């Protein structure tokens, strides 16, 4: 590839590329086993999966590129995959191809080969192809493309050994010349002109394969043009761009269509030729409706589709949180007990009280706060991977799209929004199923507005104390308010920050498949362990910080007015005056509520000196509250700053402190405005 020979490091790299739903992850798992880790590509929300393959005593670095149909500049995923192959130059690229859908999959293959990647093809899902009477001749395909083609059935580990052997073999061989598709006399003429200019410009020639670059310039690839513009200090760079512009105009006029379409058409023409040569299909056996179509006729039915989806979602929701609750409680109790025991032991050793309290509430409390999220996250991702791997998730998105569309959201956004009613942490992690960045960012940002279960005890405490006749309506109104604000904010953010990025709704409905235990378990483990590692540290740090604020200076009563936390509460209290709850106790409760929203109840019990079980008595007797100010406070509790676990997971999923800070800031401002509005308007209307 050009004149630069990258110094080959000790460990050689294998990259996996392929369309979505072709079993790429399955092959990745087969290659790396448990030796894998998930991170993010720098600066973007896209997940980066890496792992190690050990073969005949040597270690290889395996990287799973995002699943893409193409390598253009239109999505983050594609740019990542393309730049990795172009600039990081993996030693070999395993292109995973769906044998039942060869023509479309080969599009990516030709793009990879045109870039000059060192490709080995895994012709996956051969069993399904056979079932459908599609007969592919791997040897012929290999001959035509000039690359090794290995038939595989990744779900049953078939062909993997051969694939590894071929990939390793290929690494030792010299890099092949890029594939040359004949684009016809007119286009070829312009390619030649551009290539000539490129060859004369070392800075560019060293960076890109020249024919590939010429093609991209003719296609008008935004990203590549931007990249060349950045090298404008070179006179030739400008010349290249001018020539590209000229060639594009010339071809459009000559051939009556834009060059991009012409080039893509030619590429498909080349692929159609390949398919004719390498594929035989036994005639007359294809049935009009496949099993998938029959299932689809029911689950995407115009009236049945929605109820079926809602029932499926309700089942996931119920199973996740019902099963998780006792487990989480058990973990919390176990850690509470461990904390008590160690504190008791420390006290018996004569350690100062403050140290014992730190170990009990700070350390064990903090670790416990992380661990309670483990059961719901593991369970949720277990069910989500079942839905995804089986192919049903795509149908759910299809069914929900008509409704979510009217909210300016993608059909797949529904799942995270619904899960938000259980807990925002796994809900935000579930946004990973959204492929489009702006859809995903919006869904993450508005998710905290969905009332999670931790907020319910706070709602109930105030609603039962001040609205004993209308508890249900008051609580319901808060859920509804959250939903309305989420829709409103979603629209606002789309208009403000993610304009022009509206993703058209096109998605593949993959055939239904039986999910494999291995892939479901790996998926579940990835999510769970990533949460502990990435979000856990932030949660722990904040729990310890708040513990310190509530217990210092030494000797104060927990969260009393004299503690630093109490003093902080007094500072903030006047801010809440317009919302009707301008006393330090409320402010302190809101601060500890950032730890976990349910902590508001316990804190109010503590600051009124009555304990958690009698918090309602303390609230009533303090004389601080009226029904109206209580409602305003609940609205604040609903909206203001997400809990620390949610903040941590927003940070992890957006991969950006800026957006995390934004989520914290906008919820705080929105909460304050809404609470003040409700209190003030309520008073004008004569409520108290």
């Amino acid at each position, binding site marked *: 590839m050009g004149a630069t020979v990258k110094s080959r490091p000790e460990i050689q790299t294998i990259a996996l590329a392929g369309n979505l739903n072709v079993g790429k992850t399955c092959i990745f798992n087969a290659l790396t086993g448990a030796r894998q880790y998930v991170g993010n590509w720098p600066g973007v929300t896209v997940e980066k999966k890496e792992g190690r393959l050990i073969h005949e005593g040597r270690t290889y670095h395996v990287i799973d590129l995002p699943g893409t149909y193409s390598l253009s500049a239109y999505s983050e995923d594609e740019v990542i995959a393309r730049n990795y192959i172009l600039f990081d130059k993996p030693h070999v690229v395993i292109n995973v191809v769906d044998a039942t*859908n060869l023509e479309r999959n080969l599009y990516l293959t030709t793009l990879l080969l045109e870039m000059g990647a060192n490709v080995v093809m895994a012709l996956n899902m051969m069993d399904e192809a056979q079932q459908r009477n599609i007969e592919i001749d791997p040897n012929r395909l290999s001959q035509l493309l000039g690359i090794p083609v290995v038939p595989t059935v990744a779900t049953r580990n078939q062909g993997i050994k051969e694939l590894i052997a071929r990939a390793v073999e290929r690494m030792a061989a010299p890099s092949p010349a890029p594939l040359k598709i004949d684009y016809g006399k007119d286009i070829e003429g312009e390619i030649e002109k551009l290539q000539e200019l490129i060859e004369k410009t070392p800075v560019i020639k060293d960076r890109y394969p020249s024919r590939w670059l010429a093609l991209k310039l003719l296609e008008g690839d935004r990203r590549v043009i931007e990249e060349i513009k950045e090298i404008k200090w070179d006179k030739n760079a400008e010349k290249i761009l001018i020539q590209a512009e000229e060639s594009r105009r010339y071809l459009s006029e000559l051939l009556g269509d834009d060059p*991009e379409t012409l080039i893509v058409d030619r590429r498909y023409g080349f692929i159609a030729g390949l*398919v004719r040569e390498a594929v035989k299909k036994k005639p007359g056996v*294809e049935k009009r409706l496949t099993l998938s179509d029959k299932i*689809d006729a029911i689950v995407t039915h115009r009236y049945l589709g929605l109820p079926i989806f809602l029932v499926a979602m309700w089942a996931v929701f119920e199973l996740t949180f019902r099963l998780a609750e006792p487990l989480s409680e058990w973990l919390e109790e176990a850690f509470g007990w461990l904390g008590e025991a160690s504190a008791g032991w420390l006290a018996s050793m004569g350690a100062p009280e403050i140290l014992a309290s730190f170990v009990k509430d700070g350390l064990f409390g903090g670790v416990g706060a992380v661990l309670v999220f483990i059961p719901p996250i593991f369970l949720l991702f277990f069910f989500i991977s079942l839905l995804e791997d089986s192919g049903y998730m795509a149908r759910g998105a299809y069914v929900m799209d008509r409704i979510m569309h009217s909210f300016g959201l993608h059909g797949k956004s529904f799942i995270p929004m619904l899960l938000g009613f259980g807990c925002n942490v796994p809900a935000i992690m579930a946004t990973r199923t959204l492929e489009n960045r702006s859809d995903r960012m919006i869904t993450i940002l508005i998710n905290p507005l969905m009332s999670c279960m931790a907020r319910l005890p706070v709602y109930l405490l105030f609603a039962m104390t001040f609205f004993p006749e209308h508890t249900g309506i008051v609580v319901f109104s808060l859920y509804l308010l959250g939903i309305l604000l989420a829709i409103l904010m979603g629209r606002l953010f789309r208009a403000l920050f993610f304009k022009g990025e509206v993703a*058209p709704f096109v998605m593949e409905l993959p055939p239904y498949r039986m999910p494999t235990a291995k892939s479901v378990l790996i998926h579940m483990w990835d999510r769970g362990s990533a949460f502990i590692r990435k979000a856990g540290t932030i949660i722990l740090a904040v729990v310890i910080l708040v513990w310190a604020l509530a217990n210092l200076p030494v000797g104060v009563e927990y969260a009393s007015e004299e503690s630093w936390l109490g003093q902080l509460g007094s500072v903030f209290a006047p801010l809440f005056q317009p919302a009707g709850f301008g006393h330090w106790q409320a402010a302190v409760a809101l601060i500890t509520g950032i730890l976990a929203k349910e902590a508001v109840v316990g804190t109010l019990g503590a600051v009124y000196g009555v304990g958690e079980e009698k918090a309602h008595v303390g609230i009533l007797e303090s004389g601080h509250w009226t029904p109206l100010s209580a409602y305003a406070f609940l609205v604040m509790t609903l909206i203001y700053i997400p809990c620390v676990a949610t903040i941590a997971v927003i940070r992890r999923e957006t991969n950006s402190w800026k957006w995390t800070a934004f989520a914290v800031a906008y919820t705080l401002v929105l909460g304050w405005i809404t609470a003040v509005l409700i209190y003030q308007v309520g008073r004008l209307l004569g409520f108290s």
Partner: protein
Amino acid sequence: MAAVVPLEFARPGKDVIIKEVAGGMGIRRRLTDLGLVKGARAHVVRNDGFGPLILALGDGVSCCRLAIGRGMAHKIMVEEREPVDGSLCSSE
């Protein structure tokens, strides 16, 4: 010759031939990536009159199902044809 209509109005059970894709590069690119190029033949599996459509895309070899949003379907001009017997997916 059958009339050219937006895909949005294509009837379920019919085949369509893609004639033109209006709209920006982004949309066109996404469609071509998925194999919806000019001249491609597809079978309308489902069109409820609201919500996305489902197409079976033919490549002469195998089938895949695509869900396409209404907004997008509005921008794709097609010609309706009677489906060819024997296979859902046959190319011209």
